[in-house]
């Protein structure tokens, strides 16, 4: 590591290996040796302890009957199912709250971030208070707070009805829903295909415009492929799109879409907390666009919406996207706080498994595998998106 100026050049002890390399080798051997020794020590203790407690390592327990109740889940589940299925259900619950939370937090955070820059003093102050308050209180405390409020709501019979068909009670939030079966899925599939087709056509239109400079409208294709095509398919096949209104029967609701209080509280807490951070990211992103860009766009006489869409946003996004990725990862990891209010996400299921079977290492390994997979997928997607919007210098 050192080059000592006062001494003659280092002697070569072992052929091409100089003093610097030897020192480097020494440190590496030392650190790796310590790491291996510590891990070996922990490993041997663990093996001894496990055999003393008659716990066999390995993932065989995943095939056994779980016997744990999961009240609220995306997939059908009953306690007679295996541990493996319980894990899958837990992962489904984590994703259910993380994906919807990310979408809602992005929308809310962007609105609040823009509000902070508003010319309206009152609006910008209110947005600032929102951000400061939510950022400086622990998420777990906010989560418990929302959950307590949720439990303090009136019983199902006296539920609040802010809008017709929407009920808010201590059973959670109940919304009207459209039942989705195979016929409806066909129509939705057609819409997705339409989106993909539209994307390809739009790329071609832009390429053509690049060649001859004449703009070609893309909206007729959008209308045709994304709206008319699925609608026509729906009419031809006669797919029913009936809305299912929730109704109060006895002490509970029948029909509609139910968001359990645990899920609803977790979603509110995650969305509001993360939106405060996203608001700050959006604000600093917009502020990072130099004033000259606004002036130049104005001088060109561009329409305001066009200016925001084509000049300001692309430049702001370059600053916004990287920190946004880490907020998305944070939201996903924070969803594990669900265990505090009894929403059964993957961490909660793993914890119950661990208590029932004693398979601590396997349970933790599964949690790590699930979260590393989710984190890597989010990072991968965001890196791809970031590369797409990054500055291309020619």
């Amino acid at each position, binding site marked *: 590591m050192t080059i000592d100026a006062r001494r003659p050049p280092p002697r070569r002890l072992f052929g091409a290996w100089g003093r610097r390399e030897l020192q480097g080798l020494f440190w590496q051997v030392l650190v790796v040796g310590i790491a291996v020794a510590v891990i070996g020590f922990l490993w041997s203790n663990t093996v001894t302890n496990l055999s003393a407690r008659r716990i066999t390592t390995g993932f065989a327990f995943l095939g056994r009957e779980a016997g744990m109740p999961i009240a609220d889940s995306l997939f059908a589940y009953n306690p007679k199912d295996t541990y493996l299925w319980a894990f899958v259900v837990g992962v489904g619950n984590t994703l259910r709250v993380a994906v919807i939370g990310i979408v809602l937090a992005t929308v809310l955070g962007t609105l609040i971030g823009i509000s902070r820059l508003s010319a309206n003093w009152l609006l910008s102050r209110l947005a600032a208070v929102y951000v400061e308050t939510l950022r400086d*209180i622990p998420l777990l405390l906010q989560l418990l707070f929302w959950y307590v409020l949720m439990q303090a709501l009136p019983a199902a019979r006296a539920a609040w009805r802010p809008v017709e068909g929407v009920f808010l009670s201590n059973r959670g939030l109940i919304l009207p829903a459209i039942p989705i079966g195979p016929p409806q899925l066909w129509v939705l599939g057609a819409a997705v295909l339409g989106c993909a087709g539209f994307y390809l056509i739009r790329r071609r239109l832009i390429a053509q415009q690049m060649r001859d400079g004449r703009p070609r409208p893309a909206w007729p294709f959008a209308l045709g492929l994304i709206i008319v095509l699925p609608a026509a398919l729906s009419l031809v096949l006669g797919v029913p799109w009936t809305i299912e209104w929730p109704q109060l029967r006895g002490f509970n609701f029948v029909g509609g879409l139910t968001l359990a209080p645990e899920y609803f509280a977790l979603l509110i807490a995650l969305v509001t907390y993360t939106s405060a951070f996203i608001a700050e990211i959006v604000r600093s992103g917009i502020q990072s666009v130099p004033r000259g860009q606004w002036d130049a766009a104005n001088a060109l006489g561009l329409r305001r919406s066009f200016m925001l869409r084509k000049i300001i946003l692309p430049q702001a996004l370059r600053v916004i996207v990287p920190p946004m990725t880490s907020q998305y990862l944070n939201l996903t990891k924070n969803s594990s706080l669900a*265990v505090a209010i009894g929403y059964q996400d993957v961490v909660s299921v793993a914890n119950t498994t661990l208590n029932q079977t004693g398979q601590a290492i396997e349970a933790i390994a599964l949690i790590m595998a699930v979260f590393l997979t989710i984190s890597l997928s989010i990072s991968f997607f965001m890196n791809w998106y970031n590369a797409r919007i990054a500055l291309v210098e020619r």
Partner: protein
Amino acid sequence: MTVIADIPDAPRAARRPQSGNPVLRWLRANLFSSIPNGILSVVLLAILAKGIFSFVQWGIANAVWLTPANDSSACRAARGVGACWAIIPEKYRFILFGTYPFDEQWRPALAVLLFIALFYLSTRRALWRRELVLLWIGALALISVLMWGGVLGLSFVPQDRWGGLPVTLILATFGLAFGFPLGILVALGRRSKLPAIRSLSVLYVELIRGVPLVSLLFMASVMFPLFMPSGFNIDKLLRAQIAIILFAGAYLAEVIRGGLQAVPRGQYEAADALGLSYWRKNRLIILPQAIRHVIPPLVNTFIAFFKDTSLVLIIGIFDLLTTAKTAIIDPAWQQFSVEVYIFVAAIYFVFCFAMSRYSRGLEATRGR
């Protein structure tokens, strides 16, 4: 829905001459600059007025402030219309200090004051010298003596009696005090030219950052006994503390690495040219500059940690949030958890807000 303030819509020179009542002028410029803006202001004012009015009604006008000891009947009568702040004077000793022996609670109180003094002194730029490390060691030792006792005529209090605010501060401060040097080592390791050290550092950082803190805490509380030789057992608080230190180390390492990357190459080369050894080069030349670069993000990481210590609730350690949650288990006071949560939120808020203000101030005076 909004108009962004920084957009120059019209040439600046065309400003109208300023005249009339300054209040009206301010209102016109900030609330009623255009018709949509005016409508927005009126709507917001109405919502705000309604919100403040109902909060004042619930939190002040109809609130119950004091009740005779352990009697919540007045609060029950006001339930739904007014807040029950009386639960705070009833329970604050438990919320703040947990099950610490009642007559000895001046000791954790003094420890909290010491922590606050330590934080305050650490923010003074004039004190950013080597002596600050000694100050930290001294203060933390003094706090340990106060909390444990057993010497100087103080009775011994085992860790499982500790609780409340001191535990939160201990978890956060010791987490930082040990996580920071760990973070520096790992950050240096991640930028090292030695492949084995670099990959070990990357593995550590990515593994810890990839999983939620909750699972690390579970690991500390459930798996730690498995890792240790049988018969060897350490206290639950210490295990959680170790998990928090490991967690803090990984996140701080990433922040410090950012600072290391910001130090110009010439500084490394100059240090090498002076013939400094690796450790002296980093200690004297590189790290002081690197850390100075990242002080604002470091403070933000500290805030995040301070909040994250509340997660120990999940493994049943009596920090501030857990004592608050336990205080409302008492059947007489069960229904008044919102008031207790607001009280605890205010405590967390004061600490975090002070830190974020400080970080903002640092950013403003940066480079001076």
